[in-house]
């Protein structure tokens, strides 16, 4: 139902694209993936949620743990291609105070590279 669809590694950063319901399972999968890349030295991440247009607060809460992990290594996370309700949910929760959002992946890539 939901999964990481694709992982790209351009210009020293990692782009994770997902598909389906952003729930606890997908949140944990993203967290594990980012943790593995942090341990290998990556510090900048883009989460492309263009194909995850529905979210719940449990999945989104796991992003708070990811932000904590990235703060410890001076890393950063950005979101791109968020559905309006996902963007609104992240804004209400305060995630967008700690993660930049971009309307397209190319825009995010240009800003973070």
């Amino acid at each position: 139902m939901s999964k990481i669809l694709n992982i790209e590694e351009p210009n020293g950063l990692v782009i994770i694209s997902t598909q389906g319901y952003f729930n606890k399972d997908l949140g944990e999968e993203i967290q594990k993936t980012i943790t593995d890349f942090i341990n290998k030295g990556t510090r900048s991440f883009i989460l492309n949620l263009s194909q995850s247009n529905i979210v719940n607060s449990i999945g989104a809460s796991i992003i708070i743990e990811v932000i904590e992990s990235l703060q410890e290594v001076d890393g950063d996370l950005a979101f791109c291609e968020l559905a309006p309700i996902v963007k609104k949910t992240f804004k209400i929760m305060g995630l967008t105070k700690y993660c930049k959002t971009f309307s397209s992946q190319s825009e995010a890539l240009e800003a973070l590279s």
Partner: protein
Amino acid sequence: MSKNPTVELKLPILKNMELIATQTAEVLSKHMGLSEEKSGEISMALIEACINAFEHSNSKEGIFIHFITSEENLTVKVIDQGIGFDASEIAIPDIENKLKTNERKRGWGIMLIKELMDSVDFVSDSSGTTLTMVKNKDKNE
């Protein structure tokens, strides 16, 4: 479908069952002519309401969802026959307090529901909880 239909669902407490409720909400929102923005807000609030009931009610009977449409609004009632809760004991979450502390990262459901819907009301006692939330139509919808 009548002009102002009412729909009742009974959801078993199983993983991702909340998505069945959102599908119903989407169909009714479209029938009522609500905007996609409002439809998304209703679905999100409904997801959170279902998850709260699944996780905290300790109900063995599943949860009941009533969708009541009218010319003015969509009312959604999420009903469980669980142990109830005291809304005054629910802390308002703040991401700044959650970061860099041992505070539980979760606990956003009620805040999200209140932010996304036009009115929200809880009636809860030891025999269960009824959450009633309303999304109003705009004059041009």
